């Protein structure tokens, strides 16, 4: 289930980045306040208590960032940023975009057309048993004409001799 939870968190962070950061911020701020309360209880002045609590936290922004990196950020956010940037650039350079699209369309179209022909003619085996043993028979008439139609008597004779 781990990957599912990570994916869910990352997608949530992508769509509601502010909410996620806000949650983390809220959580850490409460932590800070409780630490401050404890410091005041221990006899410190409010200013001193606040400073000490902040110090024990280190850099608050960095702590929030480190926590956010678990919930969001990382490769997902970078990828989403890159895609958005790419789309913006394409929209900005219309001539380049149309040439690229036309080139791709023609290229893919031509390839598909040629492949369908090659596939039908060369790649796909003939739909008969022992397709590699099928032959075309020609006969040569006394006048030297090549032809591949023949009389039924000849056909029967050939059939007999090949079995």
């Amino acid at each position, binding site marked *: 289930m781990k990957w599912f939870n990570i994916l869910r968190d990352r997608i949530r962070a992508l769509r509601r980045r502010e909410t996620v950061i806000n949650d983390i911020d809220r*959580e*850490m701020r*409460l932590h800070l306040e*409780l630490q401050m309360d404890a410091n005041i209880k221990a006899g410190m002045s409010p200013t001193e208590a606040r400073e000490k609590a902040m110090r024990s936290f*280190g850099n608050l922004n*960095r702590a929030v960032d*480190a*926590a956010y990196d*678990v919930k969001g950020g990382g490769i997902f956010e970078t990828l989403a940023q890159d895609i958005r940037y790419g789309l913006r650039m394409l929209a900005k350079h219309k001539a380049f975009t149309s040439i690229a699209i036309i080139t791709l369309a023609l290229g893919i179209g031509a390839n598909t057309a040629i492949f369908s022909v090659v596939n039908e003619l060369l790649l796909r085996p003939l739909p008969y048993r022992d397709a590699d043993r099928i032959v075309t028979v020609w006969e040569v008439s006394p006048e030297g004409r090549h032809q591949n139609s023949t009389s039924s008597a000849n056909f029967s004779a050939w059939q007999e001799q090949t079995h």
Partner: protein
Amino acid sequence: MPKNKADLLQGTLDMLILKSLSLGELHGYGIIQRIRQLSDEMLKVEQGSLYPALYRIEQKGWVSSRWDVHETGREAKFYKLTRAGRKQLETEEASWDLLCLAIAKVRQAT
């Protein structure tokens, strides 16, 4: 078996967090305090490392969280051990005991 020092530390922190939650629901500040108390003030978990670890543990499904009103009237996020978390704690404690035993054996060799 941990691969390096960072792994060992992270794994240990996970175990400490799970252990502190095994005694009941807590918020982040409470986890640090409980680990501090239970260790006789010897272990001080940094806030900066607690929350990333806590979120990672939550993603693994070992704890669940919810927002609730804290005794001071402020909103706090409370964490609770799940069934899977309890099981994980048992596994980690067992492998920790084994590691301690193994090290003790090596150290006792003459």
